[in-house]
């Protein structure tokens, strides 16, 4: 299945990419599967997406967690804690 992944703010700059399409096996996964795959790319991915790195996620424009289900065609966003207001 294919999932569109977006990066914002500091993470977009660190990774040097705004968005990409990631291919995952099967037709249903948890958001954690994407994080695992990205961490395997090495630095800076591994450090910025470490368990204690404090990044946030949204699946289909709603705040999500590692166990949030992800299916083909979904949009997953990965970003630092928000600082608006």
């Amino acid at each position, binding site marked *: 299945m294919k999932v569109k992944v977006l990066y914002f*703010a500091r993470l977009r700059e660190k990774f040097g990419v705004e968005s990409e399409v990631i291919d995952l096996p099967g037709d249903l996964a948890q958001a954690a599967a994407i994080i695992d795959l990205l961490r395997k790319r090495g630095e800076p991915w591994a450090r910025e997406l470490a368990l204690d790195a*404090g990044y946030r996620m949204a699946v289909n424009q*709603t*705040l999500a967690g590692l166990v949030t289900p992800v299916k083909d065609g979904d949009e997953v*966003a990965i970003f*630092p804690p*928000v*600082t*608006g*207001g």
Partner: protein
Amino acid sequence: MKIQVSETDFDSGAEIASLHAGQPKVGAVASFVGLVRDINEGDDVSTLTLEHYPAMTEKSLRDIVDEAMGRWSLLDVTVIHRVGKLQPLDRIVFVGVASGHRGDAFAACEFIMDYLKTRAPFWKKEGTPQGERWVEARATDDEAAERWQQSSKKDPA
């Protein structure tokens, strides 16, 4: 309800007026305006650039306002958030809440700001004499938002 995310400035007075114009049931309007400061973490700030996640921003603000309307008795709500490049003295955010009485208006206004600060996908980058840097999230903002979860619906303090 009015939710607006744009680069353009807003008129706080006009926004407040429109929350009660022709609405005789409104007995109270509480509002908050957030502004760009010229200092942060001890450094001079000359610019503030706001990035957001366009597909999610308005939806997240709408969800926050919906939750406030479920908690308090509100007659109307306006949330305006600017994006793009701002500078000190500029307005960033407006939250206005109209209600029958002041208690609900005050509480809902603070709740919306606390949730906006921790849940709406905006990120600030500030320009200082040392260069540009991303503003770090504050633990005090998380604590401010959490107290609404611990407390009963009508009594946040």
